[in-house]
């Protein structure tokens, strides 16, 4: 029977995944028996740029590590440097950072929900998710000046402020988004065809999720209540944050986590907008950084980790980024063997791979 084994390449160019992830699937008939990953197609060497760009310019570089959660990368980097220098961003800046981070979480999750629907062939849901995503993109553009690369964080605070009329307009757009989400709730969570394609597919048990080091919705979809926002960086301490947890551990549970995280992020933004404190936007930065710092934040895909070493000059010595997709690749390779070939795109997408983040 061994001559019935075939190797099928998946990626780096594949219709379901625009990012260059390459996996060799060993299949027997329709069943996947092995998966061998290959990474390294989009390495850009962004970490080594710390030696040629000063630490303020690096904010714009770290934002470009990821094209979808750029603001959260900058948030993590600025927080790490602020810890190192012993300064704290003013309260208003902390709240604004939460607002923009959560806007990014919403648009990342809506993009993913659309792509996920596309992976199991539900094109109209795909289009509808991307249609309501425009509300968030418009909010980002109107408040920060850009749709995706917001460039609002600087070391010591934020660069943009929200005017009262902008806040009113934002709340209105969020209500429209909420309406759009309500229309899609039944389709995404109760529809028969969606459940057929996602329930029981790509199962990751609670123990395996922990053992293999899963992060983010992949981890929370397997029943672990672990979220970096529980540590209360930025203003999450002051807001009413509750992590979303599902226990099933399959693709459906991970989709459900992301769907409810969108709704919860909208609540967080509303709460932050209503309680936005009055203060300065930036604090004065005392000289150049010196020492070591580590910081962790929650990206849409999971835990993001920054290590920074500085030597008292304006150029940093070393920066190390660990992204959640890197943590989620071992669980993915654990989920794949045993599945049917048509389920492969659904399972690969269920960890929300961001390969540009992973390779930098």
């Amino acid at each position, binding site marked *: 029977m061994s001559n019935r084994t075939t190797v099928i390449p998946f990626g780096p160019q594949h219709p379901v995944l625009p990012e260059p992830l390459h996996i060799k699937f060993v299949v027997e008939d329709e069943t996947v028996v092995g998966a061998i990953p290959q990474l390294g197609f989009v390495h850009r060497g962004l970490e080594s740029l710390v030696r040629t*760009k000063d630490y*303020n*310019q*690096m904010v*714009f*570089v770290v934002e*470009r590590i990821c094209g979808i959660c750029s603001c959260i990368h900058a948030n993590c980097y600025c927080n790490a440097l602020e810890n190192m220098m012993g300064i704290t961003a003013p309260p208003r800046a902390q709240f604004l950072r939460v607002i923009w981070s959560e806007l990014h979480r919403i648009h990342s999750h809506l993009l993913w929900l659309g792509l996920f629907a596309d992976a199991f062939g*539900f094109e*109209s*849901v795909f*289009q*509808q998710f991307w*249609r309501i995503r*425009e509300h968030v993109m*418009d909010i980002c*553009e*109107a*408040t*920060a*000046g*850009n749709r995706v*690369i917001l*460039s609002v964080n600087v070391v010591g605070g934020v*660069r*943009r402020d929200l005017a009262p009329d902008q806040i009113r307009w934002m709340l209105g757009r969020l209500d429209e988004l909420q309406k759009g989400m309500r*229309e*899609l709730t*039944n*389709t995404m969570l*109760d*529809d028969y065809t969606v459940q057929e394609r996602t329930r029981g597919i790509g199962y990751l048990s609670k123990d395996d999720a922990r053992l293999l080091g899963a992060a983010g919705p992949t981890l929370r979809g397997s029943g672990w209540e672990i979220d970096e926002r529980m540590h209360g960086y930025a203003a999450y301490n002051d807001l009413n944050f509750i992590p979303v947890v599902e226990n099933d551990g399959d693709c459906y549970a991970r989709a459900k986590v992301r769907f409810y995280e969108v709704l919860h992020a909208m609540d967080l933004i509303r709460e932050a907008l209503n309680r936005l404190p009055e203060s300065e936007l930036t604090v004065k930065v005392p000289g150049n950084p010196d020492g070591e710092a580590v910081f962790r934040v929650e990206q849409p895909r999971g835990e993001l980790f920054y290590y920074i070493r500085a030597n008292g000059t304006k150029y940093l010595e070393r920066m190390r980024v660990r992204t959640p997709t890197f943590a989620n690749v071992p669980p993915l390779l654990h989920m794949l063997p045993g599945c049917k070939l048509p389920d492969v795109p659904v399972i690969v997408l269920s960890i929300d791979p961001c390969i540009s983040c992973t390779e930098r």
Partner: protein
Amino acid sequence: MYMLKNVLRNLSGKPATRLYPLEEREPFPAYRGVITNEVEKCIFCNSCARVCPTDAITVDAKAGQWHYDPFLCVYCSACVEKCPTKCLVQVPTHRKPSVVKFRVLRTGTPRVKKSAAAKGKEESGAEKKAEQE
């Protein structure tokens, strides 16, 4: 079947997208668009070139020249915020597409010592040149 209502409404309703090149949306006032230098006010202090993360700006203080490469620029507006005389302006419209690369060169009054200031004023023909490369 939950999606049917939505699909029918989208089928009969207006499209969500615009016929872009023909029909353009009003830009948001806070949008980061084209950066221009009102060179009459520029003191060629080099602050913009120092903060630029992509080295898109180079300043020649002696010749009074401000070079700017819009194809290197990432429109982060760090230079606009740093500018001490507020001579850098960012308008909320994006740059029009171009088939050739070019650099923007703005020539103004060079920064001169106070004794020679009167002499410098005579040649303050601020003009914009777009050099084609």
